[in-house]
């Protein structure tokens, strides 16, 4: 693919932003400063980045419980996200949603989702709205290997295909549905094979190669915009952390984790950029530092923000 330096740098920075955001959350969760559950996206940065950089602001996404990466890649604001995860009034959802329910309708983010498979039907609705209103928008449904077994996901794939909706299904296959390995939860090796049942393209890509993800998704988005219907892109990847922070991960071996860490999507892409003279080592260093500062500022913003007032509890139950 022929991508501009600007696009390549945007991808690079997005992956670093997700990485540093998640590392910071890991740190503060361990310190007991973050309430509730946190599901980190570490190791999977190339999927959200490669996929969302194929979209425009008005395109819609539905996300998952492991949604921070998708939201940041779609343009989510570091400060508003961090404040929400810290449960602050200044957060995206005024502290009412938390990590699993961040949304930004202005950026086309229809929400992370605490229900595995919850986003499929909603993404059908978003794609249906685009088709109905004859906009040029597409919808994108992120879902994991676990969600691929849910009836809702199969229903959504079917309806999207039957109605030729402008929808791209991006499967993030990290090999485990919580603790259950893929081989125990499904007979297929490639989730993309399921696309054949709905007469849509099913493509397997290296989910740790941002350009491979991007290329496949761009094709799918093109097809969707042309009115040719949905596609299913399976991105094979791995989560470095447990299902949630605090998960002892007894169901995986260290060797497996180390092997996948060797396929870390960020240094792989960084090396490519340096090799092609798109990026210098000094620029790389500066980028990491700059984004680290942005993330620190987001933490500062979150921590200095007030907790929600209990008087706001009943707000927004109804429109």
């Amino acid at each position: 693919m022929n991508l501009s330096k600007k696009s390549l740098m945007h991808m690079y920075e997005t992956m670093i932003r997700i990485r540093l955001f998640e590392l910071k959350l890991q740190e503060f969760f361990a310190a007991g400063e973050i309430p509730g559950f946190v599901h980190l996206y570490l190791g999977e940065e190339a999927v959200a980045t490669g996929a969302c950089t194929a979209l425009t602001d008005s395109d819609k996404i539905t996300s998952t419980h492991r949604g921070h990466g998708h939201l940041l890649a779609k343009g989510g604001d570091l400060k508003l996200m961090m404040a929400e995860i810290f449960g602050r009034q200044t957060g995206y959802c005024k502290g009412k949603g938390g990590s699993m329910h961040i949304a930004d309708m202005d950026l086309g983010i229809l929400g992370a989702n605490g229900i595995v498979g919850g986003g499929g039907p909603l993404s059908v609705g978003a794609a249906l709205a685009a088709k109905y209103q004859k906009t040029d928008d597409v919808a994108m449904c992120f879902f994991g290997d676990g969600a691929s077994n849910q009836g809702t996901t199969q229903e959504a794939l079917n309806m999207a295909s039957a109605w030729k909706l402008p929808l791209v299904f991006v499967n993030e296959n990290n090999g485990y549905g919580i603790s259950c390995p893929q081989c125990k939860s499904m007979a297929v090796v490639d989730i993309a094979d399921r696309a054949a049942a709905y007469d849509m393209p099913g493509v397997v890509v290296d989910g740790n190669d941002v350009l491979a993800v991007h290329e496949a998704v761009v094709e799918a988005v093109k097809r969707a915009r042309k009115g040719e219907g949905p596609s299913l892109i399976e991105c094979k990847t791995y989560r470095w952390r447990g299902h949630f922070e605090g998960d002892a991960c007894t169901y995986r071996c260290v060797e497996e984790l180390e092997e996948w860490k060797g396929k870390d999507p960020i240094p792989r892409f960084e090396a490519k950029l340096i090799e092609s003279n798109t990026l210098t080592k000094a620029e790389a260093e500066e980028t990491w530092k700059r984004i680290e500062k942005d993330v620190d500022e987001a933490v500062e913003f979150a921590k200095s923000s007030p907790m929600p007032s209990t008087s706001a509890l009943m707000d927004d139950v109804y429109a």
Partner: protein
Amino acid sequence: MSEKTYLQALNEALRQEMESDEKVFILGEDVGQFGGCFGVTQGLFAEFGEERVMDTPITESTIVGAAAGAAACGLRPVAELMFVDFIGVAFDQLFNQAAKMRFMFGGKATVPMTLRMPQGAGIGAAAQHSQSLESWFMNIPGLKVVIPSTPHDAKGLLISAIRDDNPVVFLEHKLLYGATGEVPDESYSIELGKADVKREGSDVTIVAYSQMLYSALEAAEQLKADGINAEVVDPRCLLPLDKDTIIDSVKKTHKLVVAHEAVTFAGAGAEIAAIIADEAIEYIDAPIKRVGAPFCPVPFSPPLEQFYIPGAGQIIEAVKSIC
């Protein structure tokens, strides 16, 4: 103004809202050429085409979820499930997604969808096609629950439901589709959350809705012979519930019977009785009585089903036990 059936009133509400707002569309199983399982959408496919009257696969989760997603993206979908009993397979999309999006997202999403579902027993449809499940939805913050009993209310309330910016569960009783009444030809709306006193009286308040309203009115007529003048209040909406109208009536009559076709235990009647106990007990002169179905699934065989469905007889009995 002319006499119309409940079904025609609903059909007219859908047609008029679709005519006045292009954002309104219908989706559901067999709602197109077939006209809907009970015929509520008849003629709309011919008039508005498949782009606005969409036949879906038999996948209730995605019917409800697609409505929620499209609503969050600016449309006003009216989804139909053939029977309320099918909400079980779609429940997550209703209560975890549609109902909560606005709150979870800090007020940044609006989900103006209507979910129409026929309910109720009386046609021999047995345990999975006959239930009255309104109390399930009453327990979900973020939803509105509308349950009309007359053709006039059905039209005005459906128009309001479609125009409402929240997810609205609209429960129709399948035995009422043929009920007739005066219905204005023009479009009109009835505010959601306003009860209607369907019969004025002074001796006892009977709160009843949907099909049971007719049993309550019949009971009230028969009770005249015993010198009992019953007031019949139709809440029309269960969420929000018009507590004031019920409390005002109880202040006048000092006695309360709540009647519905759903099982008595943990039904809407339990909530209404509890509200009176909490907020107006000093006006009550006798125990609050509830009339509802026995705590068993809806049976199939006609004599069993008829025995199961509560009617005027039980309401009269309940009233007489406290008057």
